[in-house]
């Protein structure tokens, strides 16, 4: 989402509007205008043609697949052209490992490898390597004969990347000496064009104001023409100001970029005169905006949760405390505080104070706020400070790739020593070198950054590395970190401040290096004292301490191609994605692992339950078996008893028949009676016995039944045991862990 005070304005009526914080996390210079650009492409403004820059090796060694704009007629092949360029980005990943000297041929080989059918018709080109490979490849791709899988998969994001690359590709003139300068201007113009009319009006109005103040400055200074310059951080004495040139620049920056880009680049690298430095900055950034200024005034009255931290850091930031102007100190606090409210997602991050100082020193508070907002949003500073600091990681990545290109030797040396760029360059990028180096230098860097974009900080970084290459190659880890964070700028210290120049050339002896700065910094061990803690250098000796012109000029010789940078950015995005996927995968695997561990636990519990049950069952079975034996013994006993009783009965029966048969022979009543009574007693006895028998039979039946059930149960248990055993076995087989 673009911040758009104008929209809010319409809603809020008279009240000064609340521009919404800049929320598009992935914003990079130029993204805001994607849509507008698309339409521009649609109208067929330009067409890209492939070409290869033979004479550009040291500047841009891997530009094999460079696309440039050649005519403005045909828009039909636009997409495909850039398609290839993104594709070759992938190739470059592998070619990056090759030392720069071999770069050319290697890249061409890389390209050749893929579409073999392409090589056929390429003999008649004298220059090597030949761009036609790629050109041909494009056509093949267009026809859909060669389809790269990775290209297909990412085609959706690629489409966006392509649009961006197309734009970047057209944003600068390849014959010029400063790609970034033009590219930034075009990007900013595009961002501006993408805004709605209300915002445009506001900005244009602001620009008019700036121009007016430039004229005021011009008139007032012309009055004192040739007077001595005051202030401690001036680089260009007033007398040397080329008023004609700067007036042209102010009145039409775009035209100067177009017609006099080298002059402009030169003028900027000599330092924008401090008299109107802030004016130029605002003009270039198109930052001044009345609405935003009003909003700032409002924000000043509000409270920020970060106030405490900001105050605490302000008190201990010497870069700032050395300004020694309390009014500006308050203004700086307000600036940082207001921004922390304005953009709560960023809030306050250490390092922002460093960014704010040069702004506050060159313009009013409200103007500084506008410019800060512009830098954050349109220049991508925001990405440096927002959570995860993606912008920082991107710059570090781009820095690595550039260093790898410009000095493979140094890059490898640092890699071997275990030095990562984040160990030393983080502070460069987050503070635009202000963390360790004096304001005079930072202002010059600002001149460049505002006109060329944040990426131009890479020029300084890479240049410093190259200039110190010889020294760095001799050092090992400890010394390297120290050197990289403290001593890189020493080579730009003016000779008169150096006691022993020779030391600088070969600073290999650890013991001797500290004395290098000793003379200037008051004899303390320089490895522990940040160089710019003695910011008094600024006030005492002005800009003379460092040879700033040389620094800027050297840095400017590194003509970084925005196109390459954009490709690095896409590489970075890709790596980031992969990294994120890895992390995701790890998390996923860990979650799965946790789940499996839970399952194991559950199974373990189940298993122990089963074992317990099994033991119980076995015990039961034993018990039942014993019981069974007892029961069958009982049965035997009972059967015996029954047999005995049956015997008794039959005995009685025989005896009673005997009695009956003997009765008639006796012929007496008593006998008869006796017999009767005897018979009665016998009958009753008999009945009793029969009862007994029935009882016993019943018991017998019961026992038999019991026996049967027990036997059945036994069978069931045996079956169950079998089951359990098989489940056990199964478990043992299925469980992958050892018991």
């Amino acid at each position, binding site marked *: 989402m673009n911040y758009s005070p104008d929209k809010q304005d319409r809603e809020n009526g008279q009240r000064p509007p609340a521009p919404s914080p800049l929320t598009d996390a992935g914003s990079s210079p130029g993204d805001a205008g994607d849509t507008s650009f698309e339409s521009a492409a649609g109208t067929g403004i330009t067409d890209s043609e492939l070409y290869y820059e033979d004479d550009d090796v040291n500047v841009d060694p891997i530009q094999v697949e460079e696309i440039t704009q050649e005519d403005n007629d045909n828009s039909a092949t636009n997409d495909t052209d850039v398609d290839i360029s993104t594709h070759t980005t992938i190739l470059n990943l592998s070619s990056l490992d090759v030392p720069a000297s071999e770069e050319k041929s290697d890249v061409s080989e890389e390209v050749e490898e893929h579409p073999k059918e392409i090589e056929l018709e390429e003999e008649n080109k004298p220059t090597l390597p030949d761009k036609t490979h790629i050109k041909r490849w494009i056509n093949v791709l267009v026809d859909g004969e060669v389809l790269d899988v990775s290209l297909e998969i990412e085609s959706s994001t690629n489409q966006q990347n392509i649009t961006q690359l197309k734009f970047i590709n057209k944003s600068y003139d390849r014959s010029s000496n400063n790609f970034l300068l033009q590219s930034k201007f075009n990007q900013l113009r595009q961002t501006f064009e993408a805004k709605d009319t209300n915002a445009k009006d506001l900005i244009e109005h602001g620009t008019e104001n700036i121009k007016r103040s430039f004229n005021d400055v011009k008139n007032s200074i012309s009055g004192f023409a040739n007077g001595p310059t005051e202030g401690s951080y001036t680089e260009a004495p007033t007398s040397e100001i080329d008023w004609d040139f700067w007036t042209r620049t102010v009145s039409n920056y775009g035209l100067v970029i177009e017609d006099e880009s080298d002059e402009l680049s030169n003028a900027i690298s000599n330092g924008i005169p401090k008299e109107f430095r802030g004016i130029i900055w605002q003009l270039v950034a198109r930052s001044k905006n009345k609405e935003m200024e009003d909003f700032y005034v409002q924000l000043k009255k509000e409270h920020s949760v970060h106030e405490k931290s900001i105050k605490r850091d302000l008190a201990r930031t010497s870069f700032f405390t050395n300004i020694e102007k309390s009014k500006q100190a308050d203004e700086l606090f307000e600036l940082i505080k207001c921004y922390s409210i304005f953009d709560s997602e960023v809030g306050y991050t250490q390092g922002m104070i460093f960014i704010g100082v040069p702004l506050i020193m060159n313009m009013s508070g409200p103007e500084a706020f506008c410019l800060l907002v512009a830098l954050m949003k349109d220049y991508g500073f925001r990405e440096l400070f927002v959570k995860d600091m993606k912008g920082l990681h991107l710059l570090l*990545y781009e820095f690595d790739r550039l260093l790898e290109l410009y000095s493979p030797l140094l890059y490898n040396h640092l890699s071997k020593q275990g030095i990562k760029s984040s*160990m030393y360059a983080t502070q460069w990028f987050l503070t635009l070198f202000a*963390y360790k180096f004096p304001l005079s230098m930072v202002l010059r860097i600002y001149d460049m950054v505002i006109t060329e974009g944040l990426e131009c900080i890479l020029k300084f970084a890479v240049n410093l590395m190259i200039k110190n290459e010889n020294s760095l190659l001799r050092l090992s880890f400890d010394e390297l970190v120290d050197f990289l964070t403290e001593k890189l700028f020493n080579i730009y210290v003016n000779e008169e401040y150096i006691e022993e120049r020779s030391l600088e050339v070969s600073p290999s002896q650890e013991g001797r290096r500290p004395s290098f700065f000793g003379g200037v910094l008051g004899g303390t061990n320089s490895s522990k004292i940040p160089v710019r803690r003695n910011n008094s250098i600024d006030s005492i000796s002005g800009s003379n301490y460092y040879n700033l012109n040389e620094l800027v000029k050297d840095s400017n010789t590194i003509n970084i191609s925005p196109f390459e940078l954009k490709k690095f950015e896409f590489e970075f995005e890709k790596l980031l994605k992969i990294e*994120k996927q890895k992390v995701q995968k790890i998390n996923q695997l860990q979650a799965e692992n946790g789940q499996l561990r839970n399952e194991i636990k559950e199974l373990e519990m189940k298993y122990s339950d089963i074992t317990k049950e099994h033991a119980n069952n076995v015990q039961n079975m034993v018990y039942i078996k014993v019981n069974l034996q007892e029961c069958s013994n009982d049965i035997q006993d009972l059967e015996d008893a029954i047999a005995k009783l049956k015997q008794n009965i039959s005995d009685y029966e025989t005896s009673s028949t005997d009695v009956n048969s003997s009765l008639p022979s006796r012929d007496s009543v008593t006998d008869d009676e006796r017999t009767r009574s005897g018979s009665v007693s016998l009958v009753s006895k008999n009945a009793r016995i029969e009862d007994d028998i029935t009882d016993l039979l019943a018991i017998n039946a019961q026992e038999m039944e019991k026996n049967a059930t027990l036997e059945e149960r036994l069978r069931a248990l045996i079956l169950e045991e079998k089951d359990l055993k098989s489940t056990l076995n199964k478990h043992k087989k299925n469980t992958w862990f050892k018991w």
Partner: protein
Amino acid sequence: MSFPNPVTSVKLVLLGEAAVGKSSLVLRFVSNEFQENKEPTIGAAFLTQKLTIGDRAIKYEIWDTAGQERFASLAPMYYRNAQAALVVYDVTKPASFVKARQWVKELREQASKDITIALVGNKYDLVEDDNEEDLVRKVNVEEGQNLADEEGLLFFETSAKTGYNVKDVFVAIGNKIPEATASGSDTATNQTSGEGRIDLSGGGNFNNATSGCC
């Protein structure tokens, strides 16, 4: 500078909330100095100091990290290969103690298993003259000691300003680092992987997944 014995290198990292005095502790240890308003650390700073403990020579390779939360994503790179860590808090700031607890947790989960951690309550000088009614101290010694006991940490209260206990922390760490880890200064060992990689892994929660079983 020659030592009788081979030098034991100790890779040490300082962690803790912003403005608790991490850089000041290092400055005191390394050059026995104190700066009232030490600059906030951006990114990280690297310093070394040699110390002889008994007959052992120890070289401390110290990474002093930025404390602000926003920079936390950079910290893993520094503690990943560290043998020792100083987790610093400010005895007058309870929030910094909470943060210290978090750092200890993160180290336990993500740093090397045998890392030696020292919990350090800094700014002792501010609470030295505490009287009953008006306590400047906001984190009791016991709280610190308890955390240290729970987690098996060394524990010290220090003052970078007066120098109180500062050296002791480093000596205690040195004593805890076994001689066997005398890795020399082969910082290259922790490398070889950095090829074009981006360190964003940051606070990714790798829980301590030891696959325990039976």
